[in-house]
């Protein structure tokens, strides 16, 4: 395969998507091992889509649009004058009360919110590639974490250290819960910087808790990341 053919046939794209026949794949590989320009293009493309994969993993929460409620049929049959007027008046009073009193209170206390989620699953205390989290100020965010499982521990305690080194206890995770990925919610306020998630194990023997792993990640703030 020569360079012109590789470019015109979109060999790089097809290779990434796994769409080349074995023969063309072999020919393209022989080409990019010898052609510096194609090698650079391919490496760049692999990095691009590898990075996008990491970014998509961070964007696990998807805002769901509430479905518009359809008005029941026959509703308008109720609007007969003798009946409708007092009913409408009562309804207006109720709606007014809800709009100006009840709903604002509900919004403050219990409105469902979509939390930004990020994964620390591939991060570990030995990794040089520190995860950078792009968060929204004063909003909680969720972290997917795997516990460093060991049967000597009955539970795991999680603690968050902020950039100033101040430690805040988070949740504890039972041995049973630790078998699966857990979600840890944190709220970094509006303090960017390097945070550390400290995981300690509580030995079944009753000995003091032992620090097992420290996972470092950076929190930065930006305009809300576009999600889909």
């Amino acid at each position, binding site marked *: 395969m020569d360079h012109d053919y590789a470019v015109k046939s*979109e060999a*790089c*794209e*097809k*290779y*990434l*998507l*796994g*769409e080349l026949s*074995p023969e063309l*794949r*072999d020919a393209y*590989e*022989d080409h*990019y*091992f*010898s*052609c*510096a*320009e194609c*090698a*650079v*293009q*391919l*490496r*760049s*493309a*692999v*990095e*691009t*889509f*590898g*990075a*996008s*994969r*990491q*970014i*998509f*993993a961070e*964007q696990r929460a998807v805002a769901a649009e509430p479905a518009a409620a359809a008005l029941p049929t026959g509703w308008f049959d109720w609007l007969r004058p003798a009946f409708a007027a007092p009913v409408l008046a009562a309804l207006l009073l109720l709606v007014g009360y809800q709009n100006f009193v009840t709903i604002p209170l509900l919004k403050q206390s219990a409105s469902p919110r979509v939390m930004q989620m990020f994964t620390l699953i*591939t991060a570990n205390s030995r990794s040089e*590639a*520190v995860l*950078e989290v*792009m968060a929204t100020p004063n909003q909680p965010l969720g972290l997917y974490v795997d516990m460093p499982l060991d049967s000597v521990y009955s539970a795991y305690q999680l603690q968050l250290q902020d950039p100033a080194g101040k430690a805040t206890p988070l949740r504890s995770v039972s041995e049973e819960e630790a078998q699966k990925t857990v979600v840890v919610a944190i709220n970094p306020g509006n303090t960017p910087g390097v945070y550390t998630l400290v995981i300690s194990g509580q030995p079944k023997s009753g000995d003091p808790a032992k620090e097992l792993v420290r996972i470092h990640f950076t929190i930065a703030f930006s305009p809300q*990341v*576009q999600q*889909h």
Partner: protein
Amino acid sequence: MEFFAFDEAYLRRLREGDPSTEAHFVAYFSQLIQIKLRSRLLAPDIVDDLKQETFARVFRKLRSSDGIHQADRLGSFVNSVCNNVLKEKYRVGARQVALEPEHLEIPDRVMNLEQLVITQQTVGVVRKVLVQLPKRDQAILREIFWLETDKEEVCQKFGVGRDYLRVLVHRAKGKFRSAMGP
């Protein structure tokens, strides 16, 4: 962006064991070998094993009496050594590496992009590029490269053809390269 041509001087330095030339050689071809082996959907540890074996054989040949004499064939030589290593190890139950025959011929699957070491700079640039794409295109890329949804299913879900996927990958690739600069 690095465009590098292997010449006779490079080949001589490599044969003589010049440390910086060796380091460059290994760094340059490591990435390409990893990409090649990932396209076979091999696990990262198997990729590492096969990569090490490939380099061991290449260096052995380079320094032998009937070594490589044509610098412009160096890349092709590395690729063919890698092919041989892959074919030798594919038999099920091989001593060092358990590969299935279909690892040589897996059709229509996106390359394995798991556990790539990506710099934060790259992630930052790609993030900016991604948000510039239409939402639907972001969703398609997400399906293909993160959820690894079958491409036919992706096409049906989004009402696009396979050509659209290639064009999208091409556009995203181009935008990223522009964003990264020279």
